């Protein structure tokens, strides 16, 4: 279970509070107006944004003392999820060993992960030689190998067209099924949430509320969300 206990994030002229919990294995969309703090919330969970007070707990232990890589979190950012000078296989292998010194068995696992996301045979390409959708798949193959219990997506597929994005979301859902990961997905597109997230966190007015049942929330949105949805 992921718990925010009296969490407060403060940056210059910006405050965000959260006091709630998300069940293990849940698939949660994170929505709200621009600048409300959706990415900041994910940044705090993954260790990139300092917390002013309160706690973030996972399975009863605090995440705050941990460095980003020690947290039980895989995060995909809006961009820069791959190193452009490394091959596809190397980019994925970083999820197993940051030193890139892989055993034969580990190398085979990298190959399996790439096959799982449909990128067989592209091991030696570099990111620039791939399409946007393929790049997303490489990042997801690494998520698969890291197998962290929390998967945080900060709009990594925002630049993709609708069909490709739907494809990626299906893959994300499958990966969550296979690894049992808890999904937190920031998005601007309510359709994304409806597609794979049964619960939703609403970030607005300096506070995080929820989790709400997605269907009920969208059927009868509170004023802050209504203003955003238009």
């Amino acid at each position, binding site marked *: 279970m992921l718990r925010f206990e009296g969490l407060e994030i403060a940056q210059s002229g910006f405050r965000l509070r959260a006091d709630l919990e998300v069940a293990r294995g849940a698939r949660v969309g994170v929505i709200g107006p621009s600048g409300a703090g959706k990415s900041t919330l994910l940044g705090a969970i*993954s*260790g*990139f944004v300092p917390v002013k007070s309160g706690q973030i707990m996972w399975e009863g232990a605090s995440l705050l003392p941990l*460095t*980003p*890589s*020690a947290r039980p*979190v*895989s*995060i995909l*950012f809006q961009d*820069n*999820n*791959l*190193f*452009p*000078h*490394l091959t596809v296989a*190397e980019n994925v292998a*970083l*999820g197993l060993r*940051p*030193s*890139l010194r892989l055993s034969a068995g580990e190398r085979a696992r990298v190959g399996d992960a790439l096959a799982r996301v449909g990128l067989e045979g592209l091991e030696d390409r*570099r990111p*620039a*030689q791939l399409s946007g959708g393929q790049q997303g798949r490489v990042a997801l193959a690494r998520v698969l190998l890291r197998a962290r219990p929390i998967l945080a997506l900060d709009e990594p597929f925002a630049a993709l067209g609708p069909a490709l994005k739907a494809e990626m979301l299906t893959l994300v859902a499958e990966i969550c099924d296979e690894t049992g990961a808890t999904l937190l997905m920031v998005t601007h597109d309510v359709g994304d949430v409806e597609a794979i997230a049964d619960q939703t966190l609403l970030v607005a007015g300096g506070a995080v509320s929820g989790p709400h049942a997605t269907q009920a929330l969208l059927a009868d949105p509170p004023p802050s969300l209504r203003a955003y949805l238009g």
Partner: protein
Amino acid sequence: MSPRAARLCALGAGGVVALWLLVLNFGALGAVAWRAEGFSGLRSADWAAVRFTLTQALWSAGLSVLLAIPLARALARRTFPGRGLLITLMGAPFILPTLVAVLGLLAVFGRSGLVNQGLGSVGVSPISIYGLHGVVLAHVFYNLPLATRILLQGWGTIPAERFRLAASLGFSPWQMFRQLEWPMLRELVPGAVLVIFLICLTSFAVALTLGGGPRATTVELAIYQAFRFDYDMGRAAMLALLQFGLCAAAALLAWRVALPAGLGGGMDRPVQRFDLGRGWLDGALIALAALFLLTPLGMIVARGIAQVPVLPPEVWHSALRSLMVALGATAVTLVMTLALAHAVLALGGARGAALEGLGLAPLAASSLVVGTGLFVLLLPVTSPRDWALVVTMLVNAGMALPFALRLILPGLREVQATQGRLADALGLHGLARLRIVTLPRLRRPLGFAAGLTAALSMGDLGVIMLFAEREGATLPMQLYSLMLAYRQADAAGAAVLLLGASLFLFWVCDRWGRGRAEV
């Protein structure tokens, strides 16, 4: 390695480098002052040296930039075959060994050079290249290309759309200049003048060869003479303090005016302009500049290339020594720069900026002052002459550090900004991060910085003159003694060898940096 340990490592390594820079730039000065045992009074000749230093630096900086403005403008707006090559060659004087440039200028403007031959054939008495105008000529030869590159980049920053807009509004050429080009110049020119002024303040080899005598001695040259010929440490120390004061004042000024970057960076394609008249004026300017810059080098190569295979063995030995010094200096510079750059970013904020400032300090340091200081520090422990090459290597590494730092720090900053979070999220820290992420991403600036350092060090004639005897000479020093001995054929051959070695070192390193084109 944990992130905290990695951070501590960066700070520790940066601290060591910072300490070394303090010793090099300030400790050496202290040692000189301490050793001086009471300052002997400065003679009027010393004040003349100060006056001459300032005068020649002002003339050199002013003329270089003044001439660079129309030249850069012409280059910025004209397309012609060989434009790219010419601009690339404009970067070459920076890595051109000073003595080679001097020899080239002598071949054109010297007593029996091209110009005097021409004048003689029409019965005009010969002009002399020695003295103030010779020193200024050599400095302009050196710095006109640098100034041109700085300003050319300035022209490149004016968006093409703005010229289009100006054309559609029917701007006159004067309005075009006033509204578009003048604001850019006002921003860049002070910095360009200061950079060149600073470079010329510490000029040693040019003054040594084209200046000298009571009327054309720089402070740097006076330090050398007090140290080497009079062995008057008190005077050398006073002069060193004076020189330090001059440089520090200029550097403080430069600190307030943001210094432009004239190295590296793509010189963009010419901006399409709509206010071009007939091109003869621009064309004449470009041709004159090319003639001025290329003839001396062409003369040297033409005179010396046949002599290279028959150079005496001691020249080849000194070349080998110089090569080792250059490679050592390159390695030391790169390690110091990486350590310092990581520490600057790890500290961040004002403290990071202060550390960065310390890294740029050698720009204002005089290598003769530093050399004198190191000599004094070594004297109680060992015979300084035995360490001539090591000291030269370390001083060269320090001299190149500001340039390397300016090339590498922005690159590192960008790597951290774009890929730092991803590396953190994946637990890439310490050496693994350096090997897998940082070094591959920095390959280009690293290669360029390595090339600059190697070439600068290969061609440097400075601190070695304080330490070495003839048998331990580097190639530039050997070249200088050939020039003194009027062995002109050997000197020309050695100059071609030196030029070739410097350019080759630069080319190899830079080429390595450009290796992975697909990134």
